[in-house]
């Protein structure tokens, strides 16, 4: 499991646009680098990031090797109701990392 950092405001007013910040530790190996013996280092990147809000998808990103190591993504959403935000990162090896954050909407 990779380390993840998720920043969601714990409280928000209904209808307020909130910023969500996410970070996951990952090498994001491009597949274009070579090791000391000249062999290609195989590609290993996170290729998909999805965020759902109470089960409904609100943000999806397809990542390519041009994304820096330890992908940091920030985006926005409207605080509609209290509940849980779920975050899912999928890498080339099929590993899935997940994270959740709770939000209270007044």
């Amino acid at each position, binding site marked *: 499991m990779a380390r993840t950092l998720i920043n969601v405001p714990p409280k928000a007013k209904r209808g307020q*646009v*909130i910023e969500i910040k996410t970070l996951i530790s990952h090498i994001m190996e*491009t597949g*274009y*680098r*070579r*090791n*000391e013996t000249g062999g290609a*280092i195989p590609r290993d990147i996170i290729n998909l990031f999805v965020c759902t*809000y109470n089960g*409904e998808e*609100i*943000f*999806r*990103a*397809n*990542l*390519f*090797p*041009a*994304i*820096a*190591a330890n*992908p*940091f*993504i*920030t*985006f*926005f*959403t*409207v605080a*509609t109701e209290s509940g849980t935000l779920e975050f899912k990162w999928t890498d080339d090896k099929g590993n899935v990392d997940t994270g959740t954050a709770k939000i209270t909407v007044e």
Partner: protein
Amino acid sequence: MTDTDTNFRPTRRAILIGTAAFGAAPLMLIRRAEATPDTMKAAIHKVIGESSVRKGRVALDIPPLVENGNTIAMSVAVESPMTATDYVKAIHIFNEKNPQPDVISVQLGPRAGKANFSTRIRLADSQNVIAIAEMSDGSLWSDSVEVIVTIAACLEYN
């Protein structure tokens, strides 16, 4: 016609041009594996098809001069009311000279509230970076930024 100079004599100029062209030929064969503006166009075409892209409504924010190509903060903001009928569907980022032209493709909807996102990218060389936003009505808007990179990504050995 009174032109008498019909037989060809190699002048000094002709010889110089000839040798210069011969010398330049091997250089053209050396080409690094990288996305050229043409492959970027092909990648854009693959995503958006034949539709025309207009400049405007998109603000791509990348520092114009970066020291380290391995991590470059990038953010995109698209002007849109983000209502149920008028919103930004997707934002695609492309580059010219990395080994691959795609950078990131983001899908959003009216629930985003604000069509903004930011991340950190890698750039292998000084080049243009393009952001294309796809609106709910099908129109496409873009912005491009020319970035100068002093230390390129992808070159270091492990």
